[in-house]
């Protein structure tokens, strides 16, 4: 169990992590979600004892990271943003080094073999790390974190820079590990959180803006369904029809012209499936619909909705074009 209370990290005047408190229970897979620079990595570095906090307490399985450093570190496996690999070693040498470094007492051969099985590293076992592909390197990084069977595994952006197939592999691996480890992973990809995590902690500008079960977070944002619809027909009339349809909250021409079709973004009310009636109307008018695709929600939407939620006392504003965390000017992120 990881317990974090009133954690603050300041670099000079700048506050990077601002009064964060949360608890991660045993066996949970928790996702740290937030844009770059939100303070995710800093928080993880503090949990693992790489950085010290300006104030606040961190305890890992009851061991304080500042007072009982060595014992606390024994309970954590950490994969930093860039996997800490010695490029001149083979995977075998590296894993044996980590085994010694962590002062592991489990049966060496058996333990390392288990890790190879889980991380599927047997092909790369005798190869020099320098020559491995990015996906393999990442897996070696994760394997490294597993040595000594720590109760908690912390992964900082484990899928960044991997190709789609490798991303899926790593996510599956994380899910497998989640069966008998507590996992904290950071990401700025929402679908990753949806795919892997039980619980999400959302950070923005050093503050924790949400701490929710994954389903709840997604539901909260998914209030309105958004579709991208490709229709052949006169743009003005089609748009006017879309805007007047019952069940449609918002419609907009995205201006992507393809042959004689235009793509529209349509937002429907919660719980209403507009696709069937819409199809009928389009057929009546002889405006062929040549494509309907659901538009996925993205991180920006999550942020906006969370920020909106926090600001709910104020009247709901029009959706800003650029999410304010990207411009860095908004005051709504409080």
């Amino acid at each position, binding site marked *: 169990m990881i317990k974090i209370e009133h954690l603050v990290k300041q670099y000079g005047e700048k506050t990077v992590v601002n009064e964060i408190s949360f608890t991660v229970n045993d066996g949970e897979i928790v996702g740290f979600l937030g844009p770059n620079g939100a303070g995710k990595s800093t928080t993880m570095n503090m949990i693992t004892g790489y950085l010290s906090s300006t104030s606040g307490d961190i305890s890992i399985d009851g061991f304080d990271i500042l007072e009982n450093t060595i014992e606390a*570190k024994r309970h954590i496996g950490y994969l*930093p943003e860039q996997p*800490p690999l010695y490029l001149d*070693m083979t995977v075998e040498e590296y894993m044996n080094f980590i085994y010694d*470094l962590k002062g592991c007492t489990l049966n060496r051969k058996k333990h390392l073999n288990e890790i190879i099985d889980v991380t599927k590293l047997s092909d790369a076992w005798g190869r020099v790390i320098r020559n491995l592909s990015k996906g393999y390197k990442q897996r070696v990084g994760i394997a*490294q974190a597993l040595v000594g069977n720590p109760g908690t595994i912390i992964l900082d952006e484990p899928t960044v820079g991997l190709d789609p197939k490798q991303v899926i592999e790593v996510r599956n691996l994380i899910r497998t590990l989640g069966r008998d480890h507590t996992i904290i992973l950071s990401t700025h990809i929402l679908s990753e959180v949806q795919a892997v995590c039980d619980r999400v902690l959302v950070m923005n500008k050093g503050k924790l803006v949400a701490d929710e079960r994954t389903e709840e977070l997604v539901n909260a944002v998914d209030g309105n369904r958004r579709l991208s619809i490709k229709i052949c027909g006169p743009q003005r009339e089609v748009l006017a029809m879309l805007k007047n349809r019952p069940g449609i909250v918002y419609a907009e021409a995205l201006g992507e012209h393809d042959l004689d079709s235009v793509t529209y973004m349509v937002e429907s009310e919660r719980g209403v499936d507009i696709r069937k009636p819409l199809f009928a109307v389009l057929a009546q008018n002889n405006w062929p619909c040549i494509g309907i695709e659901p538009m996925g929600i993205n991180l920006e939407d999550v942020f906006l909705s969370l920020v909106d939620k926090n600001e709910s006392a104020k009247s709901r504003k029009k959706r800003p074009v650029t999410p304010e965390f990207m411009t860095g000017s908004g005051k709504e992120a409080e």
Partner: protein
Amino acid sequence: MLAIYKREMRAYFTSPIGYIFIGLFLAVSGILFSVCTLLAGADSDVNTYFTMILYAFIIVIPFITMRSFAEERKQKTEQLLLTSPVSIAGMVAAKFLAAFTLFLGTFLVSCLQLSLLGKYTADTINGVNYPRIWGNIFAVILVGAACIAIGIFISSLTENQIVAAVGTISVLLLFFVLNILNSFIDSFLIRTLVNWFSVLSRYMNFTYGIFDFTALLYYFSICVVFLFLAVRVFEKRRWS
């Protein structure tokens, strides 16, 4: 700590750096030995040889210390070491001992050539002055350890190996020229002070075959102080 030591030793020999150091050190000591003793004829003196070896440290020691922490930082592997259950002091000590082992081994090998002295010595009555040689060997090892500690500390300050090497060369140079500098200073106080810090003036007693305990303490203190500073560098980075 043993794991880090073993990895360091291994790294010296899987990269060219260990071989370069050994080759360079043996070549330089061989040349100096020939020039200072065998070829010097009547002026032959082991003290000159050992003093010249000390000057060679300015160039060769940075080879084994420059990568120690700079490379870890560049490769981001220091994050691994600092988040693993090893104390920072243990980590610094392991790095120091690895570099020291390589240095000690190479230096002891280079000492084999001293056995030639007995065969060619000009002084047929007294033979070779062995206590003096033992004193010198012992002192050179001490000075080497001090230089390595300085190099390790400087390596912990940067992530660029070249900067670490040049920085180490500069600092060692400064330490070594202190007593040359001294002859230009008039003030007695400053001269005494500078003399106190000078690596070479401490060394002198060993060349007379005298075991100088204060010098031993001095070199030992330099090791401890600079290794302690290296530990502080990591502590500081953690807290800042």
